[in-house]
């Protein structure tokens, strides 16, 4: 990982915490429903918690700045060919310690995974659980490098079928059926498979 990326990571998490904290605190303070004059005000607890988050974010930022200054100092010392005392250089809160682990991550797969999961979340509502599940199982097998079309299709359908039997027929769980024509399709499918009797 290049130095610039390392530095970004040092600062991005504390800054993220601070940004989220400021947005939430502003939301709470501007909310007319949250009347801080009331005894046991509804805003008291969340404000305290968000303030805690802000404080931690600030401490993390200070630690990151200190770590970077130390690194700079050590780099200068190294350039001057001086003996460096490493005691105290590494901070306990030092993201660079995880950098070796970082490089093991496949970001392309991460992107595909997140896209798949988000798409599944949305299609469950519109297409219904059955069609969306067939899709996600197939998609997941595909991004996991299973190239056999037969394997993908058979696993998707058999897997979805088993899940439907367990949760709809045995568990009576009202899983999302989709909207419009997809809803009608799900009802038809459930009736055809004798998964339930009533619509």
């Amino acid at each position: 990982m290049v130095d610039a990326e390392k530095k970004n990571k040092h600062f991005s998490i504390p800054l993220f915490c601070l940004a989220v904290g400021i947005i939430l605190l502003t939301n709470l303070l501007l909310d007319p429903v949250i009347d801080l004059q009331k005894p046991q005000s509804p805003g008291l607890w969340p404000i305290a918690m968000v303030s805690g988050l802000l404080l931690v974010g600030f401490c993390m930022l200070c630690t990151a700045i200190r770590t970077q200054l130390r690194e700079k100092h050590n780099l200068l010392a190294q350039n001057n060919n001086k003996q460096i005392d490493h005691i105290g250089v590494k901070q306990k809160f030092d993201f660079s310690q995880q950098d070796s682990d970082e490089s093991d991550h496949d970001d392309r797969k991460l992107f595909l995974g997140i896209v798949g999961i988000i798409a599944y979340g949305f299609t469950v509502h519109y297409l219904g659980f059955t069609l969306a599940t067939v899709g996600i199982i197939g998609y997941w097998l595909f991004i996991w490098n299973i190239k056999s079309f037969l394997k993908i299709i058979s696993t998707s359908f058999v897997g979805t079928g088993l899940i439907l039997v367990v949760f709809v027929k045995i568990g009576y769980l009202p899983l999302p059926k989709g909207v419009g024509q997809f809803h009608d399709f799900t009802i038809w499918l459930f009736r055809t498979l004798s998964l339930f009797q009533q619509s």
Partner: protein
Amino acid sequence: MLLDILNNLLGGMGNLFQLWNFGLLALGSLIGITAGALPGIAFVNAMALALPFAYFMSPVTAMLFLTGIYVGGIFGGSISSILLNIPGSPGSLPATWDGYPLTKSGKSAKALGIAITCSAIGGMVSAMLMIFFSPPFANFALTFDQPEFFAATFLGLVTVIAIAKGQMLPALASLFGGLVFGSVGFDFFYGAPRLTFNWEVLDGGIHFVVAMIGMFAIGEVLYTLTQNLKTNHRNLKGHTQLPRVKELWDLKTTIARASGIGCMIGVIPGAGGIVGAVISYGVEKQVSKRGDKFGTGVEEGLAAPETAKNATTGAATIPMLTLGIPGSAATAIMMAALMLKGVNPGPILFVQGKELVYTVFAGYLVANVLIVVFGLLIARGFSYIMRVPPAILYAIIIVLSVIGAFAVRNNIFDIYIALAFGILSYFMKRFNFPTTPLVLGLILGPLMERFYLTSLASYGSPAEFLVRPKTAIIMSIAGLFLVWSLWPSVIETIRRIRLKEK
């Protein structure tokens, strides 16, 4: 009281050995050991995924099912630690230090035998502690009022932070994140929506079960996907040779010490199996005559962490059952299952739900016996288990997670929340942020707020938290934990200043 406990325990045993109850405990144990043994799937993930199935079960059966997964899973990780040098779960890390060297020297059967037996013994000791310690503690907790419960919840949160010594700031950020998430939705007193951004779907708040499913199941799947995990080990030999009585007798002091350490560590919220196992290994290394040879395949070096790891299970359940305060992700899931079934854990449960409590106690005892039976079986079939394509496994996990999240309130929005928490959990794991404090913050935050507000309403002043004797004692313990966790940093700063001066 002792006779009462034994009498109730007999009743619990009777309940446990009903076909359905025992069958699900055994199934849970089998699933737990398998999930634990598979690198990339921790037993906590398996427990989170078991939640949707809990809807079909009675509270007793659901708890037995989860107990089986918990007790079995915490042991299961040792199989892959010993055979592959890959810890199946974090708590099994120390098993690689002396377990794998034993395998390399051709003694894998012996190593597996020691791990199975010691885990079972440690778990039994812990279960006994839970059985005999929980009822008097619950009796004591019946005298608690709102301020005492607030203090106990506060102690739980503080210990979570204290345990994360080297990662104090990330753990605090994670905890406050959880506390903030926990305060989303209607407030307890006035019913005013908070942090909802005028989004009605958030009025009901973020249900901790939904968040837990996202974090422990979906997040884990994403993490494994990006890791390119290779799990093809077709030539593994998982034969097991249980230790003889004489061999066990030689390990008696190790087992006794490790059981004690495991039980003590287990009670501390946030500590869990990994801390118990590592501390026990360290202590054993110091006191053992063969301490200098640890790491080369010494039996004591394997027996100690294995015993301690399972000895945390029963002990960790005590605060959850007696106070309704979960100290770990696993016990949080068990509490979630109880709450989903309309049962509130806490001291009252020991009065109104004796049948459930003692059946769970009996379940812990029997689950540790089942470890021996299923441990032998799964270790033998381990090479076959490793052949299950992870793609299929993880696709099913995502689908089950979605079902689990939806089933909590039959709300499609909970699916989105679970998915969002899954993605959040992935990044937290990637940047080495502990996820357990977030979950505990999410669970304990609303409880703490409620105890705080009702205490204020009843007694008027926050000073009440310090003047009531029990509350003051609990708060002092929390303070001690904080000092203990900050102490190394203070020492290091002083040392650094002195070095600079020189």
